[in-house]
Structure formats: structure tokens, C-alpha cells
């Protein structure tokens, strides 16, 4: 779309736009760079000087046409080697929405990069080459999106121009992907509702020719769904607050102790889930002390109600001992505290994670000492099979772990809350982030029960 006066007017109205965070995943030659380039380009996010730089660099390399991958490969080593090393974040806007794109590389360290991008994403775009259909890498991407509980997935079946824009090619790929995703136990999958109610929306595209990316395709009149951009602009990003357990991890205690505010004592944090109201009875974990919310400050403004993901300061009726790392929850809706954490982890470091290893566990605002008691299984994403007792996890492995912590944690299941059910394992020696943890059950649990637990007696 071009920049018209009307677009400028809409772009400059800040109240009209929401923020969508999404991640792209695709294999090396699926055309991910082309798709990203087109989304950036057609939303005016590639500006003249950037394009000129790409053109100059392409010429220098002896390429005739500007190589759009140079827009997204930002590092010297990436340009020299023609590969993408790491997740990059990109920004573009339409009059309806602002977008934060976690552009994840398609190869080398694929799993940890996609986990990183997916951890904050509201939506994941999984690219498939129409000529190749669902391949190992596609299944991995779908599994990571499901494991990380990315709320929405777009299956972008690319290069439709190379299969004569045939509907049956697209339908077969969408069906195969659906079958695999239902194995992952994704809620809302294939429920037959509108595309927005389903977890996944399949869109036939040609990123190169521009079919169904920003403009509807004249070559595929059999397709009646949205274009990629239209879907990105309209997919819901707000949380369903009714089903959420309210959680406020205390980040920092605000105590001015000035003449103007001699008794102010506020518990600052970003609401991780649900809503808090003035007058509500709350419990502080892990101590279990109770009080009532006497006031909520929303960055200098006093409010009666606040919800995720607002950063707020809670004031309580009673002067109780609360510090960073505590969790404030509604009384009657408190998670159990535990020192035995069972979780699915993705290993993101080059150094391995082994049974018996001493680590730090960072959960919300709390970091505690912990020890890896067991690594019951390692998962193969391609076929979701479980490999019992691997002894260790190495880079890009996904597995189940049991961790004993030095202090009790108020941990939700990741299925209930991405924010209070997630944690990091950190190497205390050098601070390396070792693993991304998701507490509780996942599809990685179920297979182990059916295929392994019966014969070897594991119970988790």
C-alpha cells in the first residue's frame, strides 16, 4: 500500500492501533525472507535509504536485482556467509495495527531460535513450500508453536505459483498439517468456526508474485479467506480475562519516605494474568499472608481495576512483609507452592544440562537455587516420540525434567499461564541461560505415558 494522506492520518492516531507480536518460521528455501521483505516493503517499512543500501550492497556482490534478504541479515558474519544467525526483531505498521516481528532463522540452531521468537508471540507464521508439502521442519515448527502455546498459527503455503495455483495441492497440505496438529492436542483446532476461532489459519500464497500476502490473489479465486496481512490485522490479541487466574509478581517495593508520602508502600509489578480490583482480598505467596487491595496506581493514576499486561503498583490495607519475588494473588485462587517442579524444557545453551547439575531457576521475579533431579525423557519433534532417560539435554533438545528447588515456588501450569508457568534455568557459574521451562503437562507428557510409562513404570 502506498502512503496516502489518509494513511498518514490513520498512522498518526495512536488510540486506533493495537500491537501484534508474531514470529515467522520456515526452512531455508521456503521463501521466508521474501515474505518478510514483502510485508515490510508493502507496509512502507522499507524506506528509500534502506533500499538504496541494499541495492548498493547487492551490486557490490555482483547481483543484478536487489537481494531483499540483505534487509534482514544485519550482521557482518551473516552478510559474509549469506546465512541468518540469530533472531532479529522488525517493526512495521498499518493504519490498523503495529507489528513486532520476531524473524527467526530457518536453520542451524532452529529450535532454540524459534522457541525464543515464539515465547512472546501472539501468532506464528509457519511457511511451507507447496512443492514439498509438510516436511520434518514443518512438524517441528508446529510442535514448537503448540508447545509454547502461541495463540494463533498461520500455515502459509508458499510458492503456489510453482504448482499452477492448484487448490488440491493446497488442500492436501492443509489437511496433512491439520492431522499433525490435532496430534499435538491444540485446543480450538479444526473446530469449524471462523478462521479467528481456530488455532490455525491456512493461506495459499506466493510471496514472490505477491499472491494473498497483502493483495488478494487473482490466480486463486477458489480461496475465499483473508490475505496474510489482513489476517495479521484482524486476529484477536486481547486475553480472555474471565478464565484467568489473577497474578502479580512483585518486582519492586516503592517507598518514597518523603514528607509528602511518609507512609506510602506500594508493590510494583506487571500484572502477569487476569485482573485486580480495589477491595479484593489477596494472598501473598509463598508466605500465605492475606490482606485487601486498598488502591491501585496505574503509573501515577489511581484506578479501581487493572488487568494484564499493565504495569501497576498495588497498595494493601495491612502493612505486611512483602518483597521482590513474592506473588500477589486473589485469596481463594492461589496456586499451590512446591519445591518439586516438573516441566518440559527446551535446551538453549551450547553446554549440556545433566542430571545432578546445580542451577538457578528464574520464575517471574524470583530466582532460587535448584538441582536437576531427573531427565525422564527427550522428545523428538518430528514424530513426537519419547526417548527415555537421555541423561542429558544438549542444544535444541526438548525434554521433560524434574527439578528440586531450594525454596518453594508459586508456579502455575504453563497451560494456564504462559507468564507464571514459564521459567529459565541458569548456570550459576557463568550466568548462561541454559533452558526455557514450561511447568506442568504438555503433549510431551502424554506420549511418554502411553509409550514408555507402562513398561518402565514412570509416573508423571
Amino acid at each position, binding site marked *: 500500500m502506498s502512503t496516502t494522506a489518509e494513511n498518514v492520518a490513520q498512522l*498518526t492516531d*495512536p488510540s486506533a492501533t*493495537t*500491537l501484534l507480536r508474531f514470529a515467522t518460521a520456515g526452512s531455508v528455501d521456503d521463501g521466508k525472507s521474501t515474505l518478510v521483505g514483502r510485508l515490510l516493503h508493502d507496509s512502507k517499512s522499507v524506506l528509500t535509504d534502506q533500499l538504496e543500501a541494499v541495492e548498493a*550492497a547487492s551490486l557490490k556482490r555482483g547481483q543484478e536485482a536487489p537481494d531483499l534478504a540483505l*534487509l*534482514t*541479515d*544485519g*550482521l*557482518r558474519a551473516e*552478510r559474509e556467509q549469506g546465512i541468518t*544467525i*540469530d533472531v*532479529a*526483531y*522488525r517493526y512495521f505498521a498499518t493504519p490498523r*495495527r*503495529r507489528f*513486532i516481528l520476531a524473524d527467526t532463522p530457518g536453520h542451524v540452531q532452529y529450535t532454540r531460535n524459534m*522457541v*525464543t521468537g515464539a*515465547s*512472546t508471540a501472539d501468532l506464528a507464521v509457519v511457511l511451507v513450500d507447496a512443492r514439498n508439502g509438510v516436511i520434518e521442519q514443518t512438524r517441528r515448527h508446529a510442535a514448537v508453536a503448540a508447545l509454547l502455546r502461541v495463540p494463533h498459527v498461520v500455515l502459509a503455503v508458499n510458492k503456489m505459483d510453482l504448482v499452477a495455483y492448484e487448490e488440491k495441492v493446497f488442500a492436501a497440505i492443509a489437511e496433512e498439517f491439520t492431522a499433525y496438529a490435532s496430534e499435538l492436542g491444540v485446543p480450538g483446532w479444526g473446530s469449524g468456526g471462523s478462521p*479467528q476461532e481456530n488455532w490455525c489459519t491456512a493461506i495459499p500464497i506466493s510471496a514472490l508474485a505477491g499472491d494473498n500476502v497483502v493483495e488478494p490473489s487473482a490466480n486463486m479465486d477458489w480461496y475465499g479467506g483473508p490475505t496474510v496481512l489482513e489476517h495479521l490485522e484482524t486476529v*484477536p490479541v486481547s486475553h*480472555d*480475562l*474471565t478464565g*484467568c487466574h489473577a497474578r502479580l509478581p512483585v*518486582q*519492586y517495593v*516503592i*517507598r518514597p*519516605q518523603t514528607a*509528602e508520602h511518609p507512609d*506510602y508502600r506500594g508493590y*510494583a*509489578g*506487571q500484572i502477569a494474568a487476569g*485482573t485486580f480490583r480495589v477491595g479484593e482480598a489477596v494472598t501473598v505467596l509463598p508466605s500465605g499472608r492475606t490482606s485487601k487491595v486498598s488502591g491501585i496506581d496505574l*503509573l*501515577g493514576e489511581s484506578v479501581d481495576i487493572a*488487568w494484564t*499486561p*499493565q*504495569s501497576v503498583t498495588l497498595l494493601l490495607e495491612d502493612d505486611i512483609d512483602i518483597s521482590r519475588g513474592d506473588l500477589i494473588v486473589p485469596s*481463594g*485462587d492461589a496456586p499451590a507452592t512446591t519445591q518439586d517442579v516438573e516441566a518440559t524444557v527446551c535446551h*538453549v545453551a551450547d553446554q549440556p544440562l545433566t542430571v545432578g547439575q546445580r542451577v*538457578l531457576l*528464574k520464575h517471574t521475579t524470583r530466582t532460587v537455587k535448584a538441582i536437576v533431579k531427573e531427565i525422564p525423557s527427550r522428545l523428538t519433534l518430528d514424530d513426537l516420540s519419547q526417548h527415555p532417560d537421555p541423561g542429558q539435554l544438549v542444544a535444541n533438545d526438548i525434554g521433560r525434567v524434574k527439578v528440586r528447588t531450594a525454596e518453594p515456588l508459586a508456579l502455575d501450569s504453563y497451560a494456564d499461564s*504462559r*507468564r507464571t508457568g514459564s521459567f529459565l534455568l*541458569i548456570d550459576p557459574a*557463568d*550466568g*548462561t*541461560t541454559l533452558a*526455557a521451562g514450561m511447568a506442568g503437562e504438555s503433549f510431551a507428557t502424554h506420549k511418554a505415558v502411553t509409550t514408555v510409562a507402562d513398561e518402565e513404570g514412570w509416573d508423571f
Partner: protein
Amino acid sequence: MTSAITVSEGVDSPYALSHLDALESEAVHIFREVAGEFERPVILFSGGKDSIVMLHLALKAFAPASIPFSLLHVDTGHNFPEVLAYRDRVVAEHGLRLHVASVQEYIDAGKLRERPDGVRNPLQTVPLTEAIQQHRFDAVFGGGRRDEEKARAKERVFSLRDEFSQWDPRRQRPELWQLYNGRHAPGEHVRVFPLSNWTELDVWQYIAREDIDLPQIYFAHEREVFKRSGMWLTAGEWGGPKAEESVESRLVRYRTVGDMSCTGAVDSDATTLDAVITEIAASRLTERGATRADDKMSEAAMEDRKREGYF
């Protein structure tokens, strides 16, 4: 939880935050994380719009208490006088503590040598990193945004720097959820970028929404300028114009504020925030492309400076 709230899923949900509210909440979360986890954080403050927005967010994050950080300004010696006046006014108004690392002092002491082209931006790295070591700052807030430059697009919110302040883009920690890992060894520090996810337009819209005061050079005004390397530079004692360069008076404004030797003005008649926002939304040039000479030195200029410890 018992609640009467019914939420209609969709863009129009009353519980969907506007993009500015979402970015503000995220930035405040980052400030509070640093306050909770580090001993000696400092905010890099240049008097430019990004650092002004950072300071505004920090003030909101800890209100009604004062912010638990001091400020650090790397003074190139070629700063716009209006910006220095603004800096001192803000520091006094909020009762802040300001540290100044001076490039001029380093040059005078023979510890740094002036470049033949007179550009001082790259010279900031040494005074900056030495100030960090000297004051033992363990977290250093920068106003860098990932939309500015392709090397910055790779930057983490929490970016670990070694004892030489170096950035190694190939050895960055994955950043998962909102769980920022600030572990560091003595001598190392973490650069923290609370505006990572903001764009230039977001910054301006936020300034307008919050009615934040800015140095006047951000708005159109008549100024004595001369052309060098395709950019309008302000004439002054710092070293311009040369004999073959001629000064003229033009209606201009600045999109970024930095060292006078490499920060260009743009032709503009935008005298209000609304006019500035409209101008930026319609611009076909990036902020840095329009106004920064030092980024044009090579394809990897920013990356190379960041590796050495630049912010």
C-alpha cells in the same frame, strides 16, 4: 476468580491495550526489573528524544518515589547548547545526579586523538566505557531502538557486555518471555534497552500523548547551516564550515540529537508535535539515514562500534 467481566475476543475488546500503553507497560517492567536486580544502574542521557522518553518512563515507574538511578552523559564537546541547557534543567527539576564523561577532556589529556574528519561520535566509546568501569555501573540503560539500524535489530533488551564493554552478537543469551537474565560477573555489565520495541513514530506519539518537553531544536526554526556529505550541519566552533563550504540560513529541524559534527538537520516547517508526527509518518527516509553521517561510513559501521562498546 469470580468476576462479572465478559470479554469479547477481538481488536475492540475493552481490555486490549493500545500499542502505546503496551509499549509503556513493557518499558516500565524493564526499569523495575533492573532496579530489583542490579546494584548500580545508570541511565545514559544525551538530552535527545529517546533518552528523554526513557527518563519520563523511569519517573513514572517509581512514582511517587524518585528514580533509583543516576544519569550519565557522554559529552562530545560538540553538543548543541540548547541540549546541554535542557539537560541541566531536567537534572535540577527532578533532583537527579548527573555524571559527565567528557570527550574534550580525553582529547586535551592526549588520551584520544581528534579524527581528521572532525567526527567525534566514534570517540565516545572510550570515555563511556571508562566511566562505566570507574563508577562500577552494572546496568547501563540506553535509548537504542531496534528499528534504528539492522545491527540494532539483533540487540537484546538485556545485553551482556564483557569487562571491555564489548558486544558479541554471536554469543547473546536467548531472551525468552519477559524473563530477563541479568547475571554478570564482576567487571561485566549489562546494557539495557527499554525502548527496544519502539519505533521513531511511537516515540513521537508518546511524547505528544504525555506532553513531554523537548529541546527546541526538534522543531522547525531558522538556522545557519552548511552542506557537508549531503547533510545540513550547524556552523560553529566545532569545525565548520571549511573555506569551500558556504553557510546559509534555512528553516530546519533535527530528527536526532547527537554530536554537531555528524548530526544533520532536515528541511522542515514542522513547528508543533502534530506537524512533526505527520512529517515522520510520511517520510521516505529513516531517522539515521536522514541525519547521521557516521552510519554511512561502512555497511557495518554500527555493528563495529557496538562491538567495541558503543551503545
